[in-house]
């Protein structure tokens, strides 16, 4: 859309301009009404993009002089709204962690974060998504001669849960900004390596930005492309397909055509399987609900180290609450939430990873998946 600055010289030109405004339904910015157009006076009029040429031709035909005042209205609109998306790229020094970011920005961020923290951070390829996009995780590892145990954290397995990838990015930033000054983080990194996958379901995340905000699954096609998406958190090989799922692609909890049928699931599972003897803790971040969930979802039988799992979970919830008073419930999914099978957290535990948790971040349903950006900081701070 363009805004034109027009100055009609004669009465005839005024009449023509008025006629043009009403026939093309143009948006008069100055004056407000066509009847207030006078010869020799400034006129500012917004012309919708498809009509720009026609309008200009018409003005030319009648020898009416004009200038282009605003060549691109949309661009101006975007620039003037600092809280909204702007087309400017963000670099880590100026990276705004209290805003939600597109996948493109997150890819860029991963590259930059590694570059500016190369002594600690390496980016690794994990696999491809259903739509052939590359999945990367960040490894935060302090060089040392001893082999360290691993803590794995993935975010964004469900597309609409935007606060989750926001948290992963925040987490990385916090660690990197404070590992020299904060003694706890320092000790942490002396003994542990952190592996962070900021967005697991990349295709779904992009789809929730561009097409459907409340999309949940991945974007793999089924039934000859008439139906899309498997719920990646029902697709892992832990009692797959037994409870809390649907075998129908049209459902949001469709478990896929088989365990690990999805490329995203396979990419994560194969990696974790390979490294499992070194992985101490598996964390997967979701929203919403404010829960710290322990295995299992598929059965109420407690896992072997149930007491320890609960203990650590309760301590975490208590620490979280200290920050802003936010309360999180701790317990096994099947007992405090609902039954489900094929979850990544259950699978991680069954292959031998002792500490496996699902975090459901803020809130309790007031905003649900569409958590306002103002809550990114407090949510991340307390979860940290």
């Amino acid at each position, binding site marked *: 859309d363009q805004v034109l600055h027009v100055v009609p010289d004669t009465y005839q030109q005024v009449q023509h301009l008025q006629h043009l405004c009403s026939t093309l339904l143009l948006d008069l910015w100055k004056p407000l009404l066509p009847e207030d157009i006078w010869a020799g006076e400034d006129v500012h009029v917004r012309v919708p993009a498809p009509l720009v040429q026609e309008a200009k031709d018409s003005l030319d035909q009648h020898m009416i002089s004009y200038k282009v005042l605003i060549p691109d209205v949309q661009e101006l609109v975007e620039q003037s709204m600092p*809280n*909204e*998306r702007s087309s400017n790229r963000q670099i880590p020094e100026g990276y705004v962690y209290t*805003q*939600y970011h597109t996948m493109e920005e997150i890819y860029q961020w991963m590259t930059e974060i590694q570059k500016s923290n190369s002594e600690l951070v390496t980016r690794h390829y994990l696999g491809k998504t259903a739509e052939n996009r590359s999945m990367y995780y960040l490894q935060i590892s302090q060089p040392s001669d001893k082999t360290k145990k691993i803590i794995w954290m993935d975010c964004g397995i469900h597309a609409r849960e*935007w606060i989750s990838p926001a948290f992963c990015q925040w987490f990385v930033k916090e660690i990197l900004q404070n590992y020299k000054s904060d003694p706890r983080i320092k000790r942490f990194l002396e003994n542990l390596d952190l592996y962070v996958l900021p967005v697991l379901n990349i295709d779904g995340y992009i789809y929730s*930005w561009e097409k459907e*905000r*409340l999309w*949940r699954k991945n974007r793999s096609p089924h039934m000859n492309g008439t139906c899309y998406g498997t*719920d990646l958190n029902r697709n892992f090989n832990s009692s797959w397909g037994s409870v*809390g799922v*649907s075998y129908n692609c*049209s*459902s*949001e*909890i469709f478990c896929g055509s088989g365990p690990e049928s999805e490329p995203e699931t396979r990419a994560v599972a194969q990696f974790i399987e390979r490294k499992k003897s070194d992985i101490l803790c598996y964390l997967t971040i979701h929203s919403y609900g404010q829960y710290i969930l322990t295995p299992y979802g598929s059965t109420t039988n407690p896992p072997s180290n149930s007491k320890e799992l609960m203990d650590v979970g309760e301590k975490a919830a208590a620490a979280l609450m200290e920050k802003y008073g936010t309360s999180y419930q701790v317990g096994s999914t099947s007992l405090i*939430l*609902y*039954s*489900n099978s094929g979850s990544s957290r259950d699978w991680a535990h069954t292959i031998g990873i002792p500490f496996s948790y699902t975090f459901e971040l803020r809130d309790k*349903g*007031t*905003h*649900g*998946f*569409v*958590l*306002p*950006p103002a*809550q990114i900081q407090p949510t991340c701070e307390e979860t940290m």
Partner: protein
Amino acid sequence: ILDSGRKYYLQFTTIDYKSGENAGSCLATVLYQKKKPPPVVNIKCTETKDQKKIEEEDNRLYQKLRHQTKPIIASNIPDIYGNIEPALEPVWALAVAGSSYIMWEKSTENLGYSMAQVKSARQWIRKDDFIEFDFTVLLHEIPTQEIISCHMRLTWRPGHPLKVKYFCASENQGLEDGSGVESGSATGILPEKGAKF
């Protein structure tokens, strides 16, 4: 309760939806009848806010919406980033209140709901004292994780219960052909009398 359903006894505290402040506590019984919604609810609440203050707030909300020169027409509240324009907060609040009626009617022992987003809102200016809105709201259904789209027509005046008429369709299936328009008037059933925000 053998054969007729299950009864739950609840004691809980409430918080203001918007401010998060403590708003009182309630004692309730909920009877789920053999998986057939809606549950039968008996409830008694003590409010921390005094009646006068509630009336004032209701009135303020009412005046804001009543004195629109042009009917409010909006979509995506909150927007995809989670932001709600301050001018549209009263509209969102009304939608939340109205949706709670729909969610109550649809709930079973195994299905719960939250209001995920107001897809569209349209105000109808009326000559009488009532405020009237048409909404399309998206409900998040647990544990199926489905998003249910509901069309809701709501009328309200302070001191009166909300009147809600609605029709819901599952997002995946599109509009169900004539499988029953669920409509209901919410006369005096909700524990919330009018809008308390």
